[in-house]
Structures are given as structure tokens and as C-alpha cells.
């Protein structure tokens, strides 16, 4: 029971306390307005280039923008503990580490899903893009999986954030890499094989591909392989992030570097 409370209540409390984007003055411009303009920017570049359809860019960018709430939130939720001098108190507590760290990911997944869903709905209205009604549930599911897998990556980045100083730089680099390698704006057939290989082990790539197929009328069953891959990638990153945090905790105790900024 206390483990469940730590997971849900502790996770939500940490999220509310440490994710700096939650104020409406930050949330609205950064997580509601900016993704719409990212979609519009790439739609217009796409039109100028004569490349893909508006739907292609809407799907790609609506899902890819979840990187901002996922990666920035996870790095903030972990690294802010250090800056606020509370990391030591957390780590000396007897609380089990799995619900302690992974519980913080749940609100991030929900928020990232909401940001992507909002971008889908508003972007579709602005661009007059429509999806088959039968595909909406499937697209919502793969969007949720994308939010989960990127949150896993976010936890992994958060672990790295405990040993590097510039976490904002790190999060921006991850955002940029995801923009290039996940085929959010360029079809896989147009990029070199090595880029496809990198994209295959990153969050979003399979979810974006699945969402595009669903938007074209494919059934959920036909994209289940992609959905499972996305889930698997997210789980691997989440596990790596958790193990990284546990390892760094031990390292910081033995070297007395816990509060080093």
C-alpha cells in the first residue's frame, strides 16, 4: 500500500513541485502554442518542397513534440532535487527506489499524451486534415505509447543529468536528435540507412510510422508490431534510466558528489 502511495502520490507531488512548466504562463506558450507552430512550420516547408502531405507532417510533429514535456519534465523532476538541496533527503530515506523514481514518470506520460492530443486536434482543425473515425482510437493508443517510450528516454537523460551540469542543453540536444532521426518530417526512404538504424532504437520512430499507417486506414492489428516495438524501446530506456539512477546514487555516496552542481 505504501509502495502504491509512493508511486502515485509521491510521483504526482514531485511532478507538481518540480516541473517548472506547470504555471499557465509557461505551460500555454511552451506546450500548447509552440507545438502548433512547429506543425505549421514543417507543413509549409513541406508544401514549399513539394514533398509529403499535410497529414504526414501533422502526425510526425504532433507526436515528436511530446519530447518537450517528456524529456524536460523528467530531467527537471530529478535534477531539481539536487539544486533545491533535497536530493540527499530523498536518497537517505528508506523508500524503495523503483516506485520513487518510476512514479514520477506517470504524470509526465499523461501530460505528454495530452500535449500531443491537443496538437493533433488543433492542428487538424487549422489544416483541415481529417482522420478516419475508426483510426482515432488506434492513433490515441500509439500516441500514448510514444509518450511512454519518450518518458523512458527522459528518465535515462535525467540519470545522465545528475553527472552533467547543463541539463537544459542536454534536453535540447535530445529534442533536436529526435527531430532528425525519428522520421517526423522526412520519410525513411529518403534518409541514409545509418540514420534509419539510429531512428529504430529511438522513441517515436515506430509510433509515428504506426500513426501514419492508421491515418491511411490501416487496422490496429496490422500495426501491432510497431506498437510493441515502441513499448519495448520505452521499457528498455525506462529500465536503463532507473538502473542509471541507482548506480549514480551509489557512486555519489562513495565519492561524496551528491550535491555537486
Amino acid at each position, binding site marked *: 500500500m505504501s509502495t502504491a502511495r509512493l508511486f502515485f502520490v509521491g510521483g504526482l507531488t514531485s511532478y507538481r513541485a518540480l516541473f517548472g*512548466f506547470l*504555471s499557465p*504562463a*509557461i505551460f500555454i*506558450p*511552451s506546450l500548447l*502554442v*509552440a507545438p502548433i*507552430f*512547429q506543425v*505549421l*512550420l*514543417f507543413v*509549409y*516547408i*513541406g*508544401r*514549399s*518542397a*513539394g*514533398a*509529403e502531405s499535410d497529414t504526414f507532417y501533422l502526425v510526425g510533429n504532433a507526436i515528436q513534440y511530446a519530447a518537450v514535456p517528456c524529456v524536460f519534465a523528467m530531467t527537471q523532476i530529478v535534477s531539481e532535487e539536487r539544486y533545491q538541496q533535497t536530493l540527499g533527503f530523498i536518497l537517505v530515506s528508506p523508500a524503495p527506489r523503483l516506485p520513487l523514481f518510476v512514479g514520477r514518470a506517470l504524470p509526465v506520460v499523461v501530460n505528454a499524451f495530452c500535449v500531443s492530443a491537443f496538437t493533433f486536434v488543433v492542428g487538424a482543425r487549422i489544416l483541415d486534415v481529417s482522420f478516419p473515425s475508426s483510426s482515432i482510437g488506434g492513433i490515441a493508443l500509439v500516441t500514448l505509447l510514444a509518450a511512454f517510450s519518450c518518458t523512458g528516454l527522459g528518465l535515462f537523460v535525467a540519470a545522465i543529468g545528475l553527472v552533467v551540469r*547543463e541539463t*537544459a*542543453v542536454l534536453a*535540447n*540536444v535530445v529534442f*533536436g*536528435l529526435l*527531430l*532528425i532521426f525519428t522520421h517526423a*518530417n*522526412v*520519410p525513411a526512404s*529518403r*534518409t541514409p540507412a545509418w540514420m534509419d538504424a539510429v531512428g529504430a532504437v529511438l522513441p517515436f520512430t515506430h509510433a509515428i510510422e504506426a500513426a501514419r499507417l492508421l491515418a491511411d486506414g490501416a487496422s490496429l492489428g496490422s500495426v501491432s508490431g510497431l506498437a510493441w516495438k515502441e513499448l519495448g524501446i520505452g521499457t528498455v530506456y525506462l529500465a536503463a534510466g532507473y538502473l542509471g539512477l541507482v548506480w549514480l546514487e551509489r557512486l555519489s555516496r562513495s565519492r561524496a558528489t551528491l550535491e555537486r552542481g
Partner: protein
Amino acid sequence: MNVVRLVWTGWLFHIKTLSLSGFFVLTAVFMPVVVATVAFYMFEAGGRPGTLFWAALGAAVYGIWSSTLFGSGGAIQWQRWQGTLEILVAAPAPFFLVVLPLTLATSTIGIYSLCATLLWGRIAFGIPFTLAHPLEFAVAVPVTILGLGLLGMVFAATFVLYRHANALSNMLEWPVLLVTGLLVPLSLLPGWVLPISWAFAPTWGMRALRDAALGGNPWPEIAITLLLGAVYVGIAAAFLRYFERAARKHATLSLT
């Protein structure tokens, strides 16, 4: 003479400081290269590789815009965090002349972006770097930087009262990139966007750079960029005077 020395010394100081900031170097180099890479692939995918140099120039100016925007957003906030805002406001030098070198420095850092993006286009995509009018290009670059830096001054001035200026910077990055025609021809955008684009120095600076690089007469655009810069100075000075007074009156100067 004191004014020139203040602006010069401040500009040099901020250039050195910002060059040591990982965040700024990233903003100036990494993200423009990312956007350029995606744009290059998109233009290639659309079978229009001839537009790659055009896109490279756009991505380079985006880098200048990006560093200016984040610099302007942070100009006041950084002083707040460091506890130096009150000291700067209380100093005998006009606050305008204290902030101006910072916003000019942030846009000057965009030189990194210009070089990095064009170099990346040359190395990774084989985009030839051939200038139709090298002299005009050499003039257009600093004029564009000056225009953007002065536009940054307007943003910095309006951000004095706004506690979450960084969020506003995040929001403005893509829209201005879109409406100033850096990567998308303005003719593709709805008609009502055009008058908005005319008010932004990046629109004219971009046109000047493209005319100088690809062929055309960049001098009218250079003149408009300078004219807009002068307008920005007037707006920023008035805003800064008003907002600074309001912040002192309401005791919100140091609120973080």
C-alpha cells in the same frame, strides 16, 4: 564617446561570456544545423535540391534569430537571478545602454550559426557556397545582425515586467521563423501574414542576404533593415523607460 565605450565594452564582455555558455553555443550552432538538416532532406525529398543553398541561408539566419530571441528573453531574467538588476537600473548610465550591448552580443553570436550551417551544408550535403555579390553579402551580414539585435532590444524591453520571458521566447521561435520567410517563401503563406512579416527585421535581412548570395539588388533591403532598426531603438527606449518605471513603482524589479 562614453556611450560608444559603454556599448563597445558591454558588447565585448557579453560576447566573451556568451561564448562560454554551452546553452548559447548550442542555440547558435546545434539547433540551426538540426533545422537545416531536416529542411535539406525535405527539399531533396520533394525533388528540389536546387533550393538547398536558399534553405541553408534561411537556417543560418534562423540561428541568429534563435540566439537573439533567447538572449533577449534572458537579458532581464539573468540579471534578476544574479541579483544585479537593481544595481544596473540604479547605475548612472541609461538602462537602455546597459541592455543594448547584451542583445547585440546575442545576435552577434549568430555568426557561429551562419558559419556552422553553411559549413554543414557544404560538408554533409555538398551545397556550393558561391556568392553572386560578395561585397554586398559582407555588408548584409552585419546589418542583419544589427537589425536582429535591435529587435531583441524591443523584446528585452517588454520582458521587464514579464516573469516568464523564457516561455515567451520558446513560443516565438517557430512563428517568427515561419512568418519571416526564412525557410518558406512568403507567397505560400496567407495574405494577412505579409504585413506582419514586414515589421520584422529578419524578413528584410534574409532578403538582403539572399539577393547578395543568389543574385539581385540587396541595397533596398539593407536600407529597410537599418530603418527598422532605428524604429526598434525608439520603441525599445520608450518601452524600457515606461516598464522600468512601472517595475520600480510596483516593486517588481527583482521578482523572479
